[in-house]
């Protein structure tokens, strides 16, 4: 059914990071190792699904005037739950993401999806939307992480495959800059450019048909 279309939207045509340009703070800040990216992506996906479902359930009860405040409270609740669970069961991830876990509250992707989708669609559709948008976000993070980790520290999968990951470039050669804030901006810029190019090409192809 719609899942395939929704997944395509989440990953490519309507990717939360690359097309909607939301949630850029975390996208640039924590994408220094694959471990961080995967952890952040999965946490956000989980929160996105939960908040979408709950907001969709309550969409007829919450009056329009206070909806933003209500959404924020609900989202903050889920974020804190994930924060506590990570601290209890995955302390290593919680340490390396630090303040960016509580900051998921103000990640515009979640509030954006609540406002644009969950508040006007059924529970099932909202859950699917949360999942596919979350996957899109995670995919963007993972690509950023792989590029930045490879170029910046010369490794792959630090923290995922052993403490030091797989070393692909000798320790003295990587361009440190890519791991630093500068690298975040440059990598994301190139990535968005790439996705714009891809989308433009796909559109062209469809028009030719």
């Amino acid at each position, binding site marked *: 059914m719609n899942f395939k279309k929704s997944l395509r939207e989440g990953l490519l045509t309507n990717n939360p990071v690359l097309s909607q340009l939301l949630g850029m703070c975390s996208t640039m800040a924590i994408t220094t190792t694959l471990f*961080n990216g995967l952890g952040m992506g999965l946490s956000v996906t989980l929160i996105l699904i939960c908040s979408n479902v709950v907001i969709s359930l309550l969409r007829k009860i919450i009056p329009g005037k206070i909806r933003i405040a209500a959404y924020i409270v609900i989202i903050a*609740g889920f974020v804190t739950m994930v924060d*506590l669970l990570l601290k209890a069961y995955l302390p290593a991830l919680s*340490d390396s993401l630090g303040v960016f876990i509580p900051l998921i509250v103000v990640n515009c992707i979640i509030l954006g999806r609540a406002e644009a989708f969950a508040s006007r669609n059924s529970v099932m559709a909202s859950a699917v939307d949360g999942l596919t948008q979350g996957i899109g976000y995670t995919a963007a993070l993972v690509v950023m992480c792989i590029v930045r980790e490879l170029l*910046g520290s010369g490794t792959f999968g630090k923290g995922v495959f052993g403490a030091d990951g797989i070393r692909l470039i000798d320790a003295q050669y990587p361009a*440190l800059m890519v791991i*630093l804030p500068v690298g975040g901006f440059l990598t994301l810029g190139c990535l968005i450019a790439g996705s714009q190019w891809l989308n433009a090409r796909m559109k062209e192809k469809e028009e030719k048909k």
Partner: protein
Amino acid sequence: MKYILKLALILLLITVVVAGLLGLVNYLTEDRIAENTAKKANVAMQTVLPSASYEKLDVTFEGITEVYKAEGGYVVRLNAMGFGGAIDLMVGVSEQGSVTGVSVISHGETASLGAECTREDWRSQFVGAVGGLQVKKDGGTVDALTGATVTSRAVTEAVNRAVECVKEVRQ
């Protein structure tokens, strides 16, 4: 007026439900989180100065979080102001006043740069020091981490502070 009350009530209800759920999750995870924290601190203490028991001392010294008496020395817990915020450190100091080990409990440093301060081969250079350390850039002997002078300076300064604190405690 009635409408506003209704709005406030709904918002209050949502907040109460969320708070209740959080209380529940907190109740369920609290012990485990405390256990994790204690375990981490304990592992750090064991690395810097192995001992069968640690006795917390009642000491106040500027910039020191906690001081423990171990067999054959002291363990000092303190914060260093690194590049990305506070670095929580454990420093072991022997009875003779030389450093027996340094361990990082938590930090917010940049991955691959300042975050390398947790590496064993970097921390081990502090072992045997008796205070007054400086990084090479400032004319001292400590090898700074590549691209992370701020972190290296902060840790070095914290180690000096721990040594000073123990000097005071011994007297």
